[in-house]
Each structure stands twice: as structure tokens, then as C-alpha cells.
């Protein structure tokens, strides 16, 4: 219960102490995502095709045709987001964390030391992210061969079954993310590669309940936006308007940037509270 109380305190503090400077690294990634969505929504122009066409094509040839491009956009966006988080996020997330931690250790948040700490954390953050993604892919596979079939067999085909499968998929994905959340936090503190990676995973497993709790508290609004795109993309494309997919994904991107910032800010505070528990 004590950990959950700390998690609640971390959530409240992260929410209250929002700082533009700390959030800005997440904004850079969001801008790149929005740029991709803008280009993907303008495939009627050669520059749109040049900018987003080749990425969309990695999902399949129909992704550069109308209206299928919007159907494949969700997958292509997920790929862009993954690559961005791996390559840029491995520096930008530690940078944000270093800025969050700067006042606690008494260094200026914009100083060169903060940037150095972020660069130092790059390899272990990247390794943690790759492990996270690998586990997610494995879970997606297991979901397909196991629970998806059982649910489909036990529930009549329709929205309820789809919603249950999607909910289960998301819950486990969040649980995996919760385990890896402390890897960049420890890396920014200056821990060595092995200590940051395995120590971070151990910490994530140790504080699994409160961490998952704070992840769910912040992530649910973005999930509400993402749900229709992942459950019924064909419905949006065929019955409403294909372009709505890009609009919803833009909202998801913006919401996600704040969600990620708040999750890392709250986890960072929870990490500190767990390390130096107050009497």
C-alpha cells in the first residue's frame, strides 16, 4: 500500500510541477510524428509522396493508394514512432529525465552537464527500448496464436470480442512498458550499463503494481483516442472519412507526448521516493 501511496504522490507532483523545459524533448519527437502524418495526408502531392510514400510502402504497396493509405497509416505510424523512440528517444527521454532530476541534485537543467548525462544514458536506453519492443512483438505473436483464438471461439464475432482482445493486448503492453520504465531513469543517474539495464528491470518488477498504476492513470485518455483506430480502422475509412484516421492519429501523437512526459516524470519521482523513503 505504501508504494501505491508513493505512486499517487508521484502522479500528483508530476501533474502539478509540469515544466515546459522538461517536456520539450518529447515535443521534438511529436513534431517529427506530426510532420510524417502531414506528409502522409498529402500523398496527392509529389512532396507528400516523397516524404511519407517510402515509409508507407514498407507496410505494403496498397499503402500508397487511396483510400488504403489511411488504413495502413496506423501501422506505418507505429513504425515511425518505434524508430523515433529508439533512435531519437534514446537521447531525448534521458534529456527530459535529466532536466527533471536536475533540481533534485542541484545542477542547472539547461547546463552542459544535463546534456552529458543524457548522452551517457543513450546506449542503455536504446538497449532497454529494443528489449521492450522485442517483448512486445513476442506478446503480439502469442496474443494471435493464443488468447485471440480462445476469445474469438468463446465470444460471438463482433465489437465486444474485438474490444476484449484489444484491451488485453494493451494491458500486457503497458505491463511490459512498466517493467522497462526505470532503465533510462537509472541510466541518467550515472549507473553503469549492466546496473542500469538489469537494475532498472529489477526495479520495474519490484515496483510493478504502483508503476503499472501510474502508467494506466496517465495513458487512458490517449488510449480512448487510439481505440477506434486500432479496433475498427476499416469502419472509419469506409463509413466516415479516410482522412479522419490522420486527424485521430495527430491527436494521439500530441496526447502521447504529454502522457509519456507525465509517466516518466511520475516514475522518476516514485524512483526517488522508493530510494529515499521519508519517515
Amino acid at each position, binding site marked *: 500500500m505504501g508504494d501505491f501511496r508513493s505512486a499517487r504522490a508521484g502522479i500528483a507532483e508530476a501533474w502539478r510541477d509540469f515544466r515546459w523545459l522538461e517536456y520539450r524533448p518529447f515535443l*521534438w519527437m511529436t513534431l517529427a510524428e506530426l510532420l510524417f502524418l502531414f*506528409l502522409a495526408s498529402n*500523398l*496527392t*502531392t*509529389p*512532396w*507528400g*509522396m*516523397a*516524404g511519407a*510514400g517510402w515509409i508507407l510502402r514498407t507496410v505494403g504497396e496498397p499503402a*500508397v*493508394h*487511396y*483510400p488504403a*493509405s489511411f488504413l495502413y497509416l496506423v501501422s506505418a505510424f507505429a513504425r515511425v514512432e518505434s524508430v523515433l523512440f529508439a533512435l531519437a528517444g534514446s537521447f531525448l527521454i534521458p534529456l527530459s529525465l535529466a532536466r527533471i532530476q536536475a533540481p533534485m541534485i542541484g545542477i542547472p537543467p539547461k547546463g552542459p552537464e544535463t546534456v552529458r548525462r543524457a548522452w551517457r544514458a543513450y546506449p542503455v536506453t536504446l538497449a532497454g527500448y529494443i528489449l521492450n519492443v522485442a517483448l512486445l512483438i513476442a506478446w503480439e505473436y502469442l496474443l494471435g496464436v493464443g488468447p485471440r483464438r480462445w476469445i474469438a471461439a468463446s465470444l460471438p464475432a463482433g465489437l465486444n470480442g474485438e474490444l476484449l482482445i484489444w484491451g488485453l493486448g494493451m494491458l500486457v503492453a503497458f505491463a511490459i512498458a512498466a517493467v522497462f520504465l526505470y532503465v533510462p531513469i537509472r541510466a541518467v543517474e550515472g549507473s553503469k550499463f549492466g546496473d542500469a539495464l538489469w537494475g532498472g528491470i529489477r526495479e520495474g518488477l519490484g515496483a510493478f503494481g504502483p508503476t503499472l498504476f501510474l502508467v494506466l492513470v496517465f495513458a487512458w485518455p490517449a488510449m480512448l483516442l487510439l481505440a477506434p483506430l486500432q479496433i475498427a480502422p476499416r469502419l472509419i475509412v469506409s463509413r466516415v472519412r*479516410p482522412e479522419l484516421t490522420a486527424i485521430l492519429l495527430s491527436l494521439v501523437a500530441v496526447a502521447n507526448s504529454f502522457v509519456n512526459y507525465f509517466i516518466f516524470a511520475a516514475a522518476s519521482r516514485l524512483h526517488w521516493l522508493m530510494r529515499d523513503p521519508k519517515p
Partner: protein
Amino acid sequence: MIAPRRFAIAFACIALLSGCSQLEGMATRYRAERMVWDAQRRETQLRIGKQAPDSMTLLRIRAEYQKPRQTFRPPFIEGQGWRVEKLRRDIARQVGKSELTASRIALLARRPDLALESARWVTTIADADTGLQRESDLATVMALRALHRYDEAVGIMRGMLDRYPPLAPRSLDQEDAILGVPDGIIELRADMGDSEKVAEERAYAAAYYRKILAQHPPPLLEAQVRSRLSRTLLEMGDANAAFEEVGTLRKLAQRTPALRSLEPELLFTEARIRGTQKDYKVALAMYDNLVRTHPASSFAARSLLDGAIIAERMGDTAGAVARYRALLARPNIDPGIGAVASYRLAMVKDQMGNWDEAKQILESIPTKYPKSRAGVEAPFAIAEHYDRSRQPDAAKAALLKAVDTYRSMIGFDTVSSYAAVYRWNILRAYTALQRWQDALATVDLMAEKDRGAPIVVEALFEGARIARATGDKARSNLYLQRILFEYPSSPRAAVVRKVLEADARKTPKP
């Protein structure tokens, strides 16, 4: 400052790449696809709440489908190379298909002239795209049929046979649509009531099938062509040649495992040949055997029909009735077979003295099978029964009812090739009723609406006869002159010329 510089470099790359003709082509194709999708969406919106949209709505829908043609002009994109060529073909296909939809909708809006223009435009952009060319040719044929330019339609269909060799199917369930074109031509001529041309087209179809067989096609295609050839030969009355083809087909089926499903068709054709050779007992036994051994096959239905006709010929009316009833009780019956079975069942019932049931069946045929010869003849058959049984008032009432039936059938589908036949029958009914003015008004209507159809020559000739009999010689000559001007190659033309020349000699010179 690093990030903005990288963004600038990325933008420069994008700007550079966007100059490529391939990207330009991909973007153009995407725009075309979006325009077609928007047109489909607009069509759905415009059709909401309208089961049968009026011509105005249909023309608005057509305008939506014409937007790609108006926006993208051939050659659609600049540049060379196989990738650009492929994109060009893709765009042409998008624009062409949209324009063909516009053509189809123009037909529904009773504007075959617009439909023809659209179809012909697609032909000009189809280039090496055989699929699009075939579709545009088919659309042209449909438009020409609606314009009653039957000879041109047949010309294009024959051209299609030369241009598009049939493709070998993967299984017997599939068949290249081009193989159905010769039968389509025969059907068109039959609809026009031109038996001489029907015989000509059958001979042409047989020659076409033989030409394909001479090229040694793969077994599945060979089987499909031989099957069509044997059927055509049988319709031409050449039972021996048909029998020979069936024999070859049977040998082919025996050595090709994929052709085992041909058995019912082979049995049916063999039975039919026996029937043509007047070997009725054997034919009937073969038909009955087919119905017993392959009850689910479509050939079982045809065997029931042919078996019933043979039973009629053998004087076994009970057997004939039983077979017609068994056929009509089958689910999803082919309308062509159903119409004939119903009509013949009514005739048998009439012969058996059960006129009430016969009449009931005859009255139901035009509604159930409007586009069939039986549907056209059924209302007249009722009047003819009353004529035979010397009930003039009932015959008169039946003729008036027939006129109403034909009018409602025209109302259902005004562009159908059957519309001319319905009007011809209205003319027959008015003539039988001696309502001369109504009959002449129908002749005038046919001369305008069905211009080009061979049956119009008969209508004009009949009109000339009626006008002459009622003392309106000027009108009679007008009809005859129209035959000469508009149908100079019709079989009636020679007789008409003689009549007009004789008239001119009789007329005193001033």
C-alpha cells in the same frame, strides 16, 4: 541549432525527390483514386432514399464520375521508363473505369448517346491495357444496342473476337467472357427476330470456335470451346458434326482429370443429339438417367425441359406435365428455361382441357419472365385461345389486356431490346382489334423509338398496308419510302420499290 539544420536538409531532399516523374505519377494516381472514391461516395449520398433514381439524379452521379476525365488529360504524366509507363497505365485505368461507370449511368438515365461517347473516349486511352479495352468495347456494345445500332454493335463484338484471344481458365468454373460473345451476337439477332441473321451468326460462331481449336489450346479451354461448338452445331441442325465434337470432348475428359465434372454436360449433349435424330425413346431414357444421376447439375433442369418436350411429341402428356412441374419446382431456376417450361406447360394444360390453370400460368409468365420470348407471346396465346374457341368478346378483352401488359413491360425497362418486340405486339393487338388509328400511332412510335431494329421494317410495312386499306395512300407511301431510305438492305426493300414504282406509273402526270 542542429535540429533545424537537419530539418532543412530533409526538406531539401524531399523537394529534390518530389521533382521525380515517378513521384509525380504516384501523386497523380493517388489524386485520381481519391476522385473516384469521392464520386462513389457522392453516388451513395445521391441515391439515399431513392430506390430508382430519376434521370436528373443519374446525370448528376454521372457528372461526378466524369470529373477524373475532366481533370486528368492523357498522357497523364510526363517522363519515360517502365515505371512511369506502369503508372501511366494505372492512371488511365482509374480514369477509364470511372468514365465507364459514367457510361453505364448514362445508359440508366436513358442517354445512350452520352454513354456511347464515354465508352468511345475510354477506347482512345486504353492503349495496351487489354482489360480496359475489353471493358470499353463492351460498354460501346451496350450503348449501341440501346441506340438500336445493332449492326455496329455486332461489328464491335466481332472485332472483340479477333482482338482478344480467350484466356485458358484455371478451373472449369471460370470462363473467359470473350467465349460468350458469339452467343451474345446470336442472342442479339434472335431478340431482333431476324432468323436469317441468326443462322449467319451461328455459322460465324462455329467458324470462330473451330479457329480457336485449330490453335491447340490447353485442355480446359479446349473443353469449353468444344462444348460451345457442339451446342452451336446442334442449333444449326448438324447433329452428326455435333456428335463428333461430343465424342472428341469425351475422349479429352477421359484423359484429363480436371474435366471429370463435364460428365453431365456430355450426357446432356448426347441425349440432345439423339433427340435431334428423332430417336426419342433413347433420348428420353438418357435425359431421365441424367436427372437421376446428377440431380444438382444445371443440366438436370435442361434435361427435364428437353425430356418434357420429347414426352409431348410422343403423346405422353402426363409425363410431360410431370417433368415441367418437377423443373418449375427446382430452386433458382434459370429464367430462360423457366419461361419456356411455363409456356409449354400452359399449352399442354390447354390441350388437356384445363383452360383455367393454363390461363393462370400464361398470365404469370410476363411478370415472372419479362425478358423472354414466352413473356412476349403469353398474352397473345390467351387471345388466340378465345379466338379458337369462338369467344370474340373474351378475345377482344384479352387483346386489350395484352396491350396493357406490354405497356407495363416497356415501363419496367425502356432501353431493353425487348421494348421493340413489345411495341410490335401492341401493333399486332391493335390490328387484330381493328383500331387502325392506334395501330398507325404505334407504327409512328416504333419508327422513332426503335429506329434501326429490323422489326421496324415489318411495322412500317404493316402500317403501309393499314393506311392503304383505310384510304390514306399518302401515309402508306410515306411508310414505304421510309423503308427504302432507312432500311435499303432489308428483304422487304425490293417489294417496296416495286410497289412505289407501280404507284408512280399509275399517278397521272400533269
